[in-house]
């Protein structure tokens, strides 16, 4: 073979670190579903190790297994030995793609258009968003559905059409200025910060309002917010789908885009992105021009919840007029970034907000990046499980912290009569709303 197996480049001690104790098994949604070892983290690591040793082929069975994995990283939280599963499975998928064992014309085309075109070119993605918006707003979507012309779509697309996400204009650029300063009323005794805000790709198209809310809570806590336009994708989609080279390219673009020396932190509000963004160091370790800067970057990237708690955020004073809230952890925020307590701490700081614990909040909702598209059946099972837990809390509001999760929950709730009227928000939106009420309350002289 000309190219060497990517798995052989893995630091072997990462593989060896797995002592196959089995503590990951009860946390793995796919093992839970099938009770088969190969669908467990421990089983997958054994397969990866055997492939690295050349004992098994990187064949279709291997490939399908690596794509059956949600990549939720619950196993990383459970792992006593600290195995870096994310790195293992990203390399395994990369090897699958390098060999092309799953290649079909259709799959190649879809991967090309999404991974290589859209998510490499933010302006194209924005343009697609406008197109989708027009389709939805013009009544065309309504008309096609009414005439049941959606039946003409190929099978998989037809099933997905009802879940086409609603594009919400304007994008972040229409809501957030490139530079925003905290208002003059900030407590002078507090330190002030200068931070960059990452707007994300999907987040920007569908949940620009979350970016606005993030800017608001940062401003309310004395942070100057820099939000560059047309930001590159973070590359997490690429890294998780076997395109490590493209992920490296995007990491470089991001490093070029931000003047790290003049920033106290780079803020992300999407759990999935954050989990990847914090590992540019490892990704670019072999790149002499970027390796050092990538390490600085890793230290400065902060999830919004993590950052707020780090800078000792100011609890809002106005009462929150909301109902019961429950919090569903984004897997890559909780398992990937180990940001577990902070979101709840923030929600609890809002006066009048009743936070009800969600059973299995640390269990994947089935969104898992593009898993709900690639593995709809397993994703649907996980979504149902999640919805029943949400129902059991009696909460009228579900907070989470990743666009994929928000979208998955919205889609599930919309089609579930038991959950009619339940709304889905990002947790910082609730904090931003509470700060917002303060101003209004002051305006009318108390409440």
């Amino acid at each position: 073979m000309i190219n060497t197996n990517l798995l052989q480049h893995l630091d072997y001690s990462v593989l060896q670190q797995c002592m196959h104790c089995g503590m990951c098994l009860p946390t793995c949604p796919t093992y839970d579903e099938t009770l088969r070892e190969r669908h467990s983290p421990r089983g997958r690591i054994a397969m990866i190790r055997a492939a690295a040793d050349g004992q098994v082929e990187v064949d279709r069975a291997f490939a399908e297994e690596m794509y059956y994995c949600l990549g939720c990283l619950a196993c990383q939280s459970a792992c006593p030995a600290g195995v870096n599963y994310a790195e293992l499975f990203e390399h395994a998928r990369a090897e699958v793609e390098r060999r092309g064992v799953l290649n079909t014309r259709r799959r190649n085309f879809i991967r090309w258009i999404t991974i290589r075109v859209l998510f490499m070119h933010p302006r194209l993605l924005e343009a697609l968003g406008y197109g989708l918006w027009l389709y939805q707003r013009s009544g065309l979507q309504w008309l096609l559905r009414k005439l049941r012309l959606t039946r003409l779509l190929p099978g998989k697309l037809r099933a997905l059409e009802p879940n086409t996400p609603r594009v919400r204009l304007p994008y972040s650029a229409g809501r957030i200025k490139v530079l925003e300063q905290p208002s003059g009323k900030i407590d002078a005794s507090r330190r002030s910060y200068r931070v960059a805000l990452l707007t994300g790709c999907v987040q920007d198209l569908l949940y620009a309002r979350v970016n606005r809310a993030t800017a608001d809570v940062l401003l309310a806590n004395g942070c100057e917010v820099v939000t560059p336009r047309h930001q590159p994708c973070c590359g997490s989609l690429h890294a998780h789908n076997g395109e490590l080279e493209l992920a490296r390219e995007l990491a470089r673009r991001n490093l070029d885009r931000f003047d790290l020396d003049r920033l106290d932190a780079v803020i992300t509000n999407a759990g999935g992105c954050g989990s990847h963004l914090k590992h540019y160091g490892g990704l670019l370790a072999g790149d002499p021009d970027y390796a050092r800067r990538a390490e600085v970057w890793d230290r400065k990237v902060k999830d919004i919840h993590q950052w707020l708690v780090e800078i000792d955020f100011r609890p809002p004073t106005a009462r929150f007029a909301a109902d019961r809230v429950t919090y569903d952890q984004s897997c890559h925020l909780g398992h990937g970034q180990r940001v577990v307590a902070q979101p709840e701490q923030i929600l609890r700081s809002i006066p009048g907000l009743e936070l009800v614990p969600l059973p299995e909040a640390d269990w994947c909702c089935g969104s898992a990046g593009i898993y709900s598209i690639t593995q709809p059946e397993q994703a649907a099972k996980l979504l149902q499980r999640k919805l029943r837990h949400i129902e059991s809390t009696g909460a009228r509001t579900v907070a989470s912290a990743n666009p994929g999760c928000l979208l998955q929950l919205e889609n599930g709730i919309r089609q579930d009569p038991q959950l009619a009227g339940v709304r889905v928000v990002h947790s910082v939106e609730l904090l931003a709303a509470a700060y917002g009420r303060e101003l209004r309350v002051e305006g009318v002289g108390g409440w």
Partner: protein
Amino acid sequence: MSLLIDQLRPIVGQQNLLSTAADVLPYSFDGTPVLHQRAACVVFPTSAGQVADILKVAAHEGVPVVTRGSGTGLSGGSVPVAGCVVLCLVQMNRILELDARNLTIRVEPGVITQKIDEAAATEGLFYPPDPGSQKISTIGGNVAENSGGLRGLKYGVTRDYVMGLEVVLADGDVVRLGNQCVKDVAGYNLRDLFIGSEGTLGIVTEVLLKLLPRPAARKTLLASFHSLEAAAETVSAIIAAKIIPCTLEFLDQQTIRCVEDFSHVGLPTEAAALLLMEADGPATVVADEALAMERIARDHQAIEVQTARDQEEAARLLSARRSALSALARVRPTTILEDVTVPRSELARMVAFVAATANKYNLRIGTFGHMGDGNLHPTFLTDERDTDQMQRVEQALDEIVTKTIDLGGTVTGEHGVGLAKKAFLKQQLGDASYRLLKMVKATFDPHGLLNPGKIFD
């Protein structure tokens, strides 16, 4: 081979038989480091009848059968024999009956240990054995290995809770041993023969377990000491004061430092030993015992004694002990966990010997374990690729085992013999007892097809 699989398929159905390389590979090992072997296929029976049919086919074809639950064993008990059938019982995972009037629970072997205690709790009852892997270990595996846990001192081990078993014998006959009666002296106690038999005598397909009333209160303390002796004397003094805590665990300095590095629970890293103590029972008794244990620890020069104020803090203190192995495992690529056990009175001597041996062979060994019942877990932090170091590990292990036996101890307290401790068993038992083991095996499994090569050759 295909003949074997063709006969097994109709028994369990296509979906419950695995035979491709990708499917079978992850069943090559259990929770034991270094050991692995490839099976021919894996079957997932759903009833005792299916198990019986599988054994008949295996007997007819002369193929060994290795029974497995979640594969968390620590002595290689469920590591396949080359070309064997792995009989995986995880799909037999129903709780059949919770009987609050007789204080029993009847379960299939694939039920997860922790789920048994959770089910018991719904009736205010308690299943005490809590092996380290309780979140995923199966009760069938616990019975096969006679697993212990943190509560052994006060509550005993799995054996103390097994009232009855349904077992499929090597020839496919199904027997029921034991019952719901507290007293039963009808015939030999065959039930006990199967507990801890590591799948070498028969396949357990149903377990009847004894339950206890759930303790009303619980109090957790953590004490640190400048010397191991002080910790050991504290334990002796507590027992001499007629207190039987449910947990009396200890961590040595190496382990304390690894745990602190890993979980930042605020452990004193300068301490030579930590004792984790827990009392449970009626609230007033627990309060008195906790106070007494605290006083005894202080009388024995404890550096500090912390008493958990609430459940949350108790969980945090307990996590220091629960994460001991995990924390040690992060340090080096290969972790070899031992399980030597000595009479309580010899504990301090044994721990000191382990530390001296680590020095002598220039090895890193972290020791933690159950101080209350003399069960130690010296843990070698090493790298299986380093042959020189692995050789020294073997020499050190040999000395530790010999010392254990000299002190009247046993080579395995709760992990079982399996493959890992096989070499030491004869040394401990002596010729006559060793021969007796083999006679029992030959009686139950004349063709040697049930988990052959485990416990002894």
